């Protein structure tokens, strides 16, 4: 980890295709690279079929089986952030054009040949079609501008109306069998269900020569011969035979290949992944910031220094972290003598780690009285 900070992170895209990108990420630490991988796989919203209403199913597959297969069909989800709402945030009761996409499938076989029912048979009901979401009248709610942000293909099965793209096989039917159903596609993320993942595979490699010995190569007789090097080994210097093991070394070069299922393009996946990580961090900063402000509002107005027993109780109420302790707040206030409070403050006033370390041992058994005023500590920090 140390040592990367002086170097700027860099990225080199080795290959970019319609559905995959291969890049090398340098000068970041392992945890960062892994978080990027995790976020691309699990935290990027897409749309996928979430509810299926089966009207006729005379195929050999049971309803659940077909519903599950339908859920796995990738649907075009570009600009999902703006183009569709989460149903849980929507004003509608069960579904509407702003938060859901209706798809229908109606296939019957009249030939003597086995017929394939595929994702190409799924048709999107255009938004605004009357009667899609029950009787039209209660749909007079906040429609929002989601619809205008949708691309032309939004919500359509990937590869439909595109010659040369093989469809996803859902079921096979013979003469006389029929499948008729309605599906509702919704927005979600892969933490909830893997069908919402935009990635079909993300490969992630570092240290192709195993110089860091993060893994052990089992071998019969010859390690080099039995463990062929990966393609990524060409990017790195091979270790010399007499090279000593550097146990302080940290990985700094990461080889990614992000392959999408077609619901989002690879560029969108990578950029949305980085944006999503930033959102997570920004929310955390916001959470950290609002907490002390509460403290100041409730505790700080009375006792800005907080080195008095009265201040503790107030602070205990304000600091969310001490919610549990605040129940005992009165007790602490009574038992902790003002002199002890003063002593604790002075120990904290001299913020050097040595003096406070010394303080810990002197407090020893009686620590609860002195240290039982954590809010004082927090007030000391916050003010």
């Amino acid at each position, binding site marked *: *980890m140390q040592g990367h900070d002086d170097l700027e992170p860099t990225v080199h895209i080795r290959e970019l295709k319609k559905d995959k990108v291969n890049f090398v990420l340098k000068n970041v630490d*392992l945890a960062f690279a892994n978080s990027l991988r995790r976020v691309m796989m699990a935290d990027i919203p897409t749309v996928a079929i979430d509810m299926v209403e089966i009207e006729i199913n005379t195929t050999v597959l049971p309803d659940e089986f077909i519903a599950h297969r339908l859920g796995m069909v990738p649907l075009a989800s570009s600009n999902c952030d703006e183009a569709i709402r989460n149903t849980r945030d929507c004003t509608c009761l069960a579904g509407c054009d702003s938060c859901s996409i209706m798809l229908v499938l109606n296939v019957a076989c009249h030939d003597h040949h086995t017929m394939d029912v595929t994702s190409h048979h799924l048709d999107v009901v255009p938004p605004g079609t009357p009667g899609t979401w029950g009787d039209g009248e209660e749909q007079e709610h906040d429609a929002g501008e989601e619809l205008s942000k949708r691309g032309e293909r939004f919500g359509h099965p990937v590869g439909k109306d595109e010659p040369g*793209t093989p469809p996803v096989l859902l079921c096979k039917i013979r003469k006389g069998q029929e499948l008729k159903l309605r599906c509702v596609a919704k927005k979600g993320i892969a933490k*909830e269900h893997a069908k919402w993942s935009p990635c079909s595979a993300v490969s992630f490699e570092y240290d192709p020569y195993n110089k860091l010995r993060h893994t052990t190569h089992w071998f019969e007789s010859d390690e080099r011969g039995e463990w062929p090097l990966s393609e990524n080994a060409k990017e790195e210097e091979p270790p010399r035979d007499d090279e000593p093991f550097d146990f302080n070394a940290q990985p700094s070069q990461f080889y990614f290949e992000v392959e999408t299922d077609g619901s989002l393009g690879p560029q969108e996946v990578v950029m949305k992944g980085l944006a999503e990580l930033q959102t997570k961090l920004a929310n955390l900063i916001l959470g950290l910031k609002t907490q002390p402000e509460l403290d100041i509002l409730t505790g700080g107005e009375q006792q800005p220094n907080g080195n008095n027993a009265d201040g503790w109780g107030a602070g205990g109420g304000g600091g969310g972290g001490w919610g549990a302790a605040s129940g005992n707040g009165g007790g602490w206030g009574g038992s902790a003598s003002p002199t002890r409070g003063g002593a604790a403050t002075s120990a904290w006033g001299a*913020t050097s780690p040595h003096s406070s370390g010394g303080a810990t041992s002197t407090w020893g058994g009686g620590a609860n009285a002195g240290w039982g005023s954590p809010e004082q500590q927090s007030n000391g920090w916050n003010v």
Partner: protein
Amino acid sequence: MNAPNRYELYVLDDGEKPVEIIEDTKIPNAATIKIVKQDHTLGNMLRAQLLSMPQILFAGYKVPHPLHPHFIIKIQTDGTMTPQAVLEQACTKLIGTMSSLENKFKREFSFKDVEGTVGAGGATAATDDPYGGSGMGGTGGAWPGGRDYLDF
């Protein structure tokens, strides 16, 4: 029928606080911070970033139970900064790293777009439109050595 909603794994409940700070009563300059509705993605990254900062004596995180959607991160500083302030600084630094990386990605992608349209057509402006005009299986966007990945 009483299963909780699946989205409760990653969406804060009404009025739920995203962060809960518990200052350590026995160790100086230390705090345990509970971060709700987040997981290893954030926890490990923060831990690593904190460890690279000079003010930190200790930083560690754990997800106490895989079914409980929160993690806790323990921080001890050398006293020049509070654990909260250090954590905030770590977040800011990470955001900085990410936005610089974002710009670099943007530039790299724009180069590749140009190459794609001029070149053999494997890599195209597929980004705006996942159904971009190029056909499947194009051999464009070759590896640096001019080889295709199928060559070996």
